[in-house]
């Protein structure tokens, strides 16, 4: 009975559509990957080659040898993991209060959270720079951990509020009737049940922290403290910008994030749309 105008498109069209979306999303990374396999002399050939003539892994070796790439990756990991942990801790406490308890000014708090999540980082740059300098925290991990944790707080809180609200209240009430305190119920019932929600929020926070550039560029001036995004962007070759080397470094820097989203894509999508669509 279905009229043919709503009929699903044919197989070939479906394949073409999928190919288009996949190419659009992956082409830059494919190109960087191909570049990373080329030798420096091949890169200066014209017309340029698309596929590497003599694929080599030498750039990957050099990327780690020429600059402290390992150090950058470790810096990024430390900052991203610590800020994510701090964010999730503070956000889950706050989200529980907002989802379950009678909080005066709840709407106002939620609106303030949305406002903070849209905050231009650059406006915080100047005063935060002074604060961190005053506290002697420039060129230390806390200079980034604290701001990242706070900037991820709104998203994590909003995701977790909607998650807590989806856990039936009766479970907690039953536990409290059985003599649990409210905090006990939070610890024994709500937190285990909301582990997936926390995980989703944590992935979003981690990716945001891994990606941040402006504060990392400004607060960690010394080369040994650079995060991976700053380290690669400020990498100066002796002559021109060394693209094969940069490409290899980029591939390594992208690896953690790509692994995360390949493993947890459904979670990321649901978290993104929840954090975005719920206000």
């Amino acid at each position, binding site marked *: 009975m279905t*009229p043919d*105008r*709503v009929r699903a498109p044919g197989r070939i069209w*479906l394949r073409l559509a*999928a190919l288009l*979306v*996949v190419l*659009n*999303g992956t082409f*830059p*990374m494919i*190109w960087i990957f191909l570049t990373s396999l080329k030798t420096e002399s091949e890169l*200066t050939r*014209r*017309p*340029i080659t698309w596929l590497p003539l003599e694929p080599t892994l030498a750039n990957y070796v050099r990327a780690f040898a020429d600059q402290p790439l390992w150090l950058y990756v470790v810096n990024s990991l430390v900052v991203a993991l610590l800020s994510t942990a701090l964010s999730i801790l*503070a956000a889950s*406490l*706050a989200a529980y209060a*907002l989802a379950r308890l009678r909080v005066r000014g709840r709407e106002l708090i939620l*609106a*303030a959270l*949305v*406002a*903070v999540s*849209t905050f231009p980082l650059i*406006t*915080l*740059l*100047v*005063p935060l*720079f*002074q*604060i961190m300098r005053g506290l002697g925290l420039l060129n230390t991990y806390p200079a980034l951990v604290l*701001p990242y*944790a*706070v900037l991820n707080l709104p998203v994590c809180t909003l995701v977790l509020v909607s998650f807590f609200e989806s856990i039936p209240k009766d479970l907690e*009430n039953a536990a*409290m009737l059985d*003599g649990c*305190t409210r905090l006990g119920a939070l610890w024994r019932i709500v937190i285990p049940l909301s582990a997936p929600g926390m995980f989703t929020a944590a992935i979003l926070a981690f990716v945001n922290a*891994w*990606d941040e*550039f402006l504060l990392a560029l*400004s607060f960690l001036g010394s080369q040994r403290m650079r995060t991976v*995004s700053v380290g*690669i*962007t400020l990498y100066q070759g002796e002559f021109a910008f060394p*693209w094969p080397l*940069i*490409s290899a470094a980029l591939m390594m*820097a*992208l690896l953690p*994030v790509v692994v995360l*989203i390949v493993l947890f894509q459904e979670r*990321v*999508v649901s978290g*993104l749309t929840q954090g*975005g*669509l719920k206000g």
Partner: protein
Amino acid sequence: MASTTRRSRRDIGEGVLAALLLAPAGALLALIVLFPILRLFWLSLHEVRLSEPWAGQPFVGLLNYRDIWADSRFWRSLAHTLLITGITVPGALCVGLGLAFLANLPFRVRWPVRLALLLPWALPLVFSGLIFAWFFDTSYGVVNDVLARLGLEGPAWLSRPGPAMAAICIAIVWKTSSFCALVLLAGLQTIPDTLHEAAAIDGAGRWQRFRHITLPLLRPAIMVALIFRTITAIQTFDIPFAMTRGGPGDATETLAMYVRTTTLDFLDFGYGSALAVVMFLISMAATAWYLRWIRGTSE
């Protein structure tokens, strides 16, 4: 009421508990957001030059703001920011809408398409900038290579004002359209197929169904994507920084880049703060629009 549930004596009142639970988040927000913003306003009313520490921090009233008004570099950076916003927000929305429609087709295997939408989102902005700088390289970039194969001669993209701006906008649209697509796709998936089928039986064509069913039902998702994209576009920093560092000259310098240069390179914290306040006000106007829209839809 609290007395209706049996509670042990250890249990504390609900209000106290709520305050305790909200305290860590509140303290963090106060330290990293609230205090710095107040400090920013205070700084913007003073002359603070780190390069001249002997001069102290005299109060100068609105002098910094008067200087901004007369500062042509500020107006240029504001114009660049608005130009980038005006081009890349609708651009990313349109591309994102196209991607969302394609991704919403009934594929049997969904993960490659979903992954292809997530990858650009997860790619750091500054890396997207680096990669596109390489794409637009005059001699060895893939863009000019394709143009050459078509018999055209590509410009020296990143060293001329117009082409540099175009390249930056293309990079931003590519990077941000996937976020729009994800939001719009979530919206599309809430539209039941039966609506389309019913309308088709009533004789509605493709365009009519798009115009009268899809678009109105997609409105909330479009608004979310539009507002978030606008707010982030006003703050554009990473991609132009990676591609041109604001050059040639200051032809692609955005407001955020100008604020950073003024403070961290010229060490003029007072003037830089005043510039940042201007940016804060522009951004808050967009946020207010967003909050009003949320309230409108929840009622």
